[in-house]
C-alpha cells in the first residue's frame, strides 16, 4: 500500500515571503507523525496545503494517493481535522454537536446512529450526551472534538496542537486514545509545541524557517541528529555560570534549570574540560558535571541554533567573497 502522505519539494510563496521551501517527506499508514517547529516556521501552511485548503506554489503532494492539486474533494472526504480551538458549539448539547458534524461530514444515513454512539462511547461521554458542551471540562471537550473529527471514519487524522491547555491526566488519556486509533490503521498527523507529547509519536519532522531540517524517530533524533552532547552542570551561581559558558568556543547552548545548567557542547571531553576551567576561573563552585541523555527540547533547540549559526556564517562568507 502506498504511504498515507507523500510530499515532494512542496513550496508555498506569499508575495516575496517563502512560507514553505521545497519540503519533502512521507508518512506511513497507521503512523503517528509529529510535525514540530516554532511559530511561523511553516507548519500551518503545510497542513493547509495537505488538507486542500491552500494551493501550493510548486512541488507535489499526495494524501492517500490523491493529488492535492486535482483531487481536493477526495482528500477532504477522507481526512479528519481537529484544531486547538476544538471548534465546538458551546451552547449546543454534546449529542447536538455530534449530529452537527455528522451532517457536515455527510455520514451516510444508515450509519449515522451507529457512528454517533461510537463517538460518545469513545469519548466516554455516553452519560453526558444531553449535557451542554460549554459546561464540560476541557479534557471532555477535547475528546468530544476528537469524536466529531472521526465520525466519517477518515483514514488520516490531522491534529493541530490538540492538547493546548489540557491537564496532564486528560492528556495521558488522550494519547492512549490516539494510540488506539493509530493501531486500527488511521494515520495521525499532529503538531505540538510540547516535547513530552512529541515523545508519543512514531516519527518526528522538524520544520524551521520554511525548511524541513530533520526527520526521524524520537530516538534517532536524540542520538543521531543532536549536534553535540548535553552536559548537566551543578554550580553555585547557575545564572552567572550560564552567561560565562555561553560565550565559550564549542558551546552551542546553555540554559539554566533551577540549580543546574544544561550546556550543549560540540565535543564531550573537551567541553567538560573547558567548562570546568572557565567556571573555576570565575570562582564558581562546580559540584557535579556529567553528560546526560538529551531531551527532545534539547535536540530541537540545538538544531535550530546550529541552523542559525550556519546561516550567519553563510552570510559572512557571502559578504567576504
Amino acid at each position, binding site marked *: 500500500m502506498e504511504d498515507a502522505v507523500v510530499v515532494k519539494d512542496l513550496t508555498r510563496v506569499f508575495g516575496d515571503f517563502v512560507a514553505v521551501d521545497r519540503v519533502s517527506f512521507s508518512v506511513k499508514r497507521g503512523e*503517528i507523525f509529529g510535525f514540530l*517547529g*516554532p*511559530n*511561523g516556521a511553516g507548519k500551518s501552511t503545510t497542513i493547509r496545503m495537505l488538507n486542500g485548503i491552500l494551493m501550493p506554489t510548486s512541488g507535489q503532494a499526495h494524501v492517500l494517493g490523491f493529488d492535492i492539486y486535482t483531487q481536493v474533494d477526495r482528500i477532504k472526504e477522507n481526512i479528519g481535522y481537529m484544531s*486547538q480551538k476544538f471548534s465546538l458549539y458551546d451552547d449546543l448539547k454534546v449529542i447536538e454537536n455530534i449530529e452537527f458534524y455528522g451532517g457536515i461530514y455527510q455520514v451516510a444515513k444508515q450509519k449515522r446512529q451507529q457512528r454517533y454512539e461510537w463517538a460518545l462511547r469513545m469519548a466516554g461521554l455516553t452519560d453526558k450526551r444531553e449535557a451542554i458542551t460549554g459546561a464540560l*471540562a*476541557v*479534557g471532555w471537550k477535547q475528546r468530544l472534538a476528537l469524536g466529531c473529527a472521526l465520525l466519517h471514519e477518515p483514514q488520516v487524522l490531522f491534529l493541530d*496542537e490538540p492538547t*493546548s*491547555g*489540557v*491537564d*496532564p*491526566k*486528560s492528556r*495521558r488519556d488522550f*494519547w*492512549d486514545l490516539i*494510540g488506539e486509533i493509530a*493501531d486500527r490503521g488511521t494515520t495521525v498527523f499532529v503538531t505540538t*509545541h*510540547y*516535547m*513530552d507529547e512529541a*515523545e*508519543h*509519536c*512514531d*516519527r518526528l519532522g522538524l520544520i524551521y524557517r520554511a525548511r524541513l531540517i530533520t526527520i526521524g*524517530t*524520537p*530516538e534517532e533524533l536524540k542520538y543521531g541528529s543532536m549536534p553535540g552532547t548535553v552536559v548537566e552542570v551543578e554550580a553555585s551561581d*547557575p*545564572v*552567572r555560570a*550560564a552567561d560565562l559558558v555561553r560565550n565559550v568556543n564549542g558551546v552551542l547552548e546553555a*540554559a*539554566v*534549570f*533551577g*540549580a543546574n545548567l544544561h550546556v550543549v557542547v560540540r565535543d564531550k571531553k573537551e567541553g567538560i574540560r573547558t567548562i570546568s576551567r572557565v567556571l573555576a576561573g570565575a570562582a564558581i563552585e562546580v559540584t557535579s558535571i556529567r553528560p546526560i541523555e538529551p*531531551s527532545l*527540547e534539547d535536540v*530541537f*533547540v540545538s538544531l*535550530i541554533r546550529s541552523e542559525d549559526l550556519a546561516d550567519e556564517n553563510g552570510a559572512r562568507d557571502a559578504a567576504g567573497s
Partner: protein
Amino acid sequence: MNEHAIQTKGLVKRYEAVCAVDGLDLTVQRGEVFGLIGPDGAGKTTTMRMLAGVLRPDGGQALVLGSDVIGNPEQVKEKIGYMSQRFGLYEDLTVAENIDFYADLYLVGRKEREARFKRLMEFSRLGPFLGRLAGKLSGGMKQKLGLACALIHTPDLLLLDEPTNGVDPVSRREFWKILYDLLAEGVTIFISTPYMDEADRCHRVGIMEKGKLLISDTPEGIRKGMKTRIIEIKCANPKKAVALLQKMEGVADVVFFGDKIHISVRSQKPDESSIRKFLEKQDTEPRSVRAITPSLEDVFFELSDRP
C-alpha cells in the same frame, strides 16, 4: 527586608458552590523562582489574582512583600508586576504605545521612564518592532511585550500567570533566560504553568490540585519523596508488551511512547530483573529495562491518586 516575598495562611476563594482556593498555605522566599503547577481548574489563576490584589479573598490572609492584600491591595499593586494569561495588551496599540500606557498607569516619571525603557528594550529585543501593532506580533513577542509592560515600574516581585502557554520551545527558552536575568537583578518570580516539565526550571515548586497545595519543595526534594518508581522498557514488540504489563501485578500505570514504554511501580516488586524475565518469557524481546528519574508529571499522578 527579610520578610518573605509571599506568605499566605488559610487563603480561601469561593465561586458560589465551588471552592476555587481552599485554605492555601504558601510561602515564597525573596530571590527565588517559585512555580505553581497543576491542571486546569486547580485554582492557580485565582491564587495569582488574589496575590496581585485584583481579587478579594473570602477568607485567610496573604502578605505580599509585607503588604496585606485584603487591607491594602493598592500598596500591593504598586510593588508587583502582574502578567495575566492574556498578557493585558492592547492589540490596536503599537508596542511603544502599550509600554507608554503602562508607564502612565504606574505613574512612572519621565526621566525614570527613559532609562527603564532602554533597559527593557535591551533584554526583550523589541527595539526593531516599536511601531508594530501588538495584535500583529507572534506569540513569543507578545509574551515579551507583556513582560516588558509588567516590568515598567521596576517591581520587586513578578507574578506570571501561565506565560508560556502556546509558545514554542525556542521562545520558551529565551523567555526563561530573561527571567533568570531578572532574578540576578533581585526580582522574585512567582510563575504558574500547566506544564510539568517547566517546573524543573524553578527553585521550588508547589503542586496544586482542586484548590489545595499538595506539596511544596524543590523539584529534587519532591522526586526524592516519591514512592513510585518509573521503569523504562524498550523492546522489539512494544504493543504486545503494553498489553501484558497492564495486567502485571504491582504495575500502577503503563504509558506507551513511540519507541518505549514507561511503567509506574508503587512497591519493591516487580523490579527491573523480574520485569525483564517476565517479558522474555512472553517473547517480547526486551532490549533494555531500567529505572529512570521520574518526571514531575509522574509525581503529580502519584499525589493526585492518593485518597
